[in-house]
């Protein structure tokens, strides 16, 4: 047997271990590999399908001028063979540099810093709304199984997942802005209003940090409507999921034990059923958070919300690979991080799993 350098053996020990820390290290490493793998897929797919990014980003007259085309290709490295382009991209990516956007001509990192918080803000509010309501409705549905409330909630939640978000956005906008005037309209702030100094990029939080309650109220009133529309789909998903998990837990012996103690049904549900169900519900909420961010494309379009979705749309239309990749990276990172957080939560909350881990 060859002697193994100490450093490597420690590393191997971590990777082979079954404890909490090795688990996290393993998960983070596979996540990073996953992200790099995704760049390869995105690159391959966009190279396989025909499409000329030069034509998409240059005007009609500029495109007919070979010199301008050549300059554009050189500027963005499009004159290189595809494998070289990919290697260069990977090289920059490993330093955290997402490249220059073809459509905005700015570094993708800069663009994302501006657009990502706007989407994060509505997605966060949406997931909170969806989770609270989904928990309440799903539980109500499960405990009134097959009776009227359950049937109503089931149809409503199925309707929620069946509504085209872009259309829901339009209907809500028409009703709450045009008819009732409750919503201030499109955008993030009143026209001409000064955004709060950037800390997180989320206007509500930045305004609070700055102690500016007027701006907070204004920013909140703008984001509420898109957030609610975004929440509707997730609400349907979470309600259905909560119902299923509560029904599953209701069948457990320990719920029968709780009932055999003569506890009020509310206590049985809250303490004995929802506590274990909560884990599964948080999982789904976490994972649907990422799809919520991706789904915001259609909502942002209607509300002129300057977020990731709008940026992704412009990047897609401009065949702007760095831009598309940037958005995908961000959403995938959220997806993977959420999965990771949920896995960690599981081990922290559930003593049985924690014990199995030891």
């Amino acid at each position, binding site marked *: 047997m060859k002697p193994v350098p100490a450093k490597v053996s420690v590393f191997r020990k971590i990777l082979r271990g079954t404890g909490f820390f090795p688990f996290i290290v393993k998960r983070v490493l596979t996540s990073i590999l*996953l*992200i790099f*793998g*995704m760049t390869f*897929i*995105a690159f391959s*797919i*966009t190279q396989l*399908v*025909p*499409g000329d990014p030069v034509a*998409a980003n240059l005007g009609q007259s500029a495109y007919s001028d070979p010199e301008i085309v050549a300059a554009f290709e050189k500027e963005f490295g499009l004159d290189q063979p595809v494998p070289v382009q990919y290697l260069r991209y990977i090289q920059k990516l490993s330093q955290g540099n997402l490249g220059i956007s073809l459509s905005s001509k700015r570094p993708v990192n800069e663009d994302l810093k501006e657009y990502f918080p706007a989407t994060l803000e509505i997605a966060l509010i949406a997931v909170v709304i969806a989770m609270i309501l989904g928990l309440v409705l799903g539980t109500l549905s499960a405990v009134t199984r097959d009776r009227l409330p359950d049937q109503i909630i089931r*149809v409503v939640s*199925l*309707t929620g*997942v*069946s*509504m*085209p*978000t*872009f*259309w829901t956005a*339009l*209907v809500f*906008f*028409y009703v709450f802005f*045009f008819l009732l005037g409750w919503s201030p309209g499109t955008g993030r702030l009143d026209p001409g209003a000064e955004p709060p100094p950037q800390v997180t990029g989320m206007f509500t939080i930045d305004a609070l940090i700055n102690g500016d309650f007027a701006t907070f109220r204004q920013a909140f009133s703008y984001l509420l409507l898109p957030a609610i529309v975004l929440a509707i789909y997730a609400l349907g998903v979470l309600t259905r999921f909560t119902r*299923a998990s509560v029904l599953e837990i209701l069948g457990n012996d320990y719920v029968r034990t709780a009932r055999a103690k003569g506890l009020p049904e509310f206590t049985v549900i809250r303490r004995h059923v929802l506590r274990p169900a909560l884990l599964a519900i948080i999982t789904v909420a976490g994972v649907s958070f*990422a*799809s919520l*961010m*991706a*789904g915001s*494309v*259609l909502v942002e*379009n*209607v509300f002129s919300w300057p977020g990731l979705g709008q940026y*992704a*749309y412009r*990047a*897609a*239309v*401009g*065949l702007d690979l760095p831009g*598309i990749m940037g*958005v*995908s990276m961000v*959403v*995938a990172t959220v*997806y*993977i991080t959420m999965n990771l957080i949920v896995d960690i939560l599981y081990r922290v909350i559930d003593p049985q799993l924690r014990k199995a881990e030891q």
Partner: protein
Amino acid sequence: MASRFGNSNSIWRQPLAVVGIVIISFWVFAAIFAPLISPYDPLAQDSDKFLTPGALHWMGTDELNRDIFSRVIYGARISLPYSILLVVLSALLGSIIGGISGYFGGRIDAIIMRLTDMFFAFPAIVLAMAVAAALGPEIRNAVIAITIVSWPVYARLVRGLILNAKQNDYVTASSLLGSSSLRTLVVDLRPNLAGPVFVLASLEVGNALLLLSGLSFLGLGAQPPAAEWGSMVSMGAVNFDRWWVGLFPGLAILSAVLAFNFIGDALRDALDPRTAKALRD
């Protein structure tokens, strides 16, 4: 297949599934007999515009004075066949990939499963937008784009089912009888896969329709002047003060998606519990 679905009549005992079947039948009927049902040519325009819904135009007219009711009826000719086509394509692609993965196992399986993991992490609509934009805005390209992002669910399902079936005796028995791997995969396993894949596909038709009309809404699918529900809603977004322009095509999408979901849900409930669980995981 009847036995896989338990009682073969059970679908008809679920009121929501019946509602779903009635709605879909309505849209199929509308698609086939559109020229007979529609009071106007869906593309006919004149100098007037934005007539409110009334006796002459039940759902009003749009910015080119085209009759929205006629366009919604004709819209069934685009949305239904293309979303079903899309689901068939991704179910086929996913089943083949999942079949290869589950059957051969080992390294091939590991690679394919990591690949599906990556596709799951990808924001489907962003990738679909990019592919659709690269191929050029056209409904056929939107179908291809969405197929590329939606096969992994089928692959995962089929792989799981094959891994289960591999432990069953009859696969071992048939390989003992000397049939080739491919024959085992295609002939012996297909009946066991068809049911679950069909149910998953029926659950996915609604999603497919939503994505497809979403791309059209963004201008990356069906192009004007085609009467496609998603792009009709986008005209409603431009003229949001004329509520009828966007409302009716959106309701058409909602009704069709809801109907497909009603049916898909009922089919899943009618499946035996073990397969149904595989579908949920």
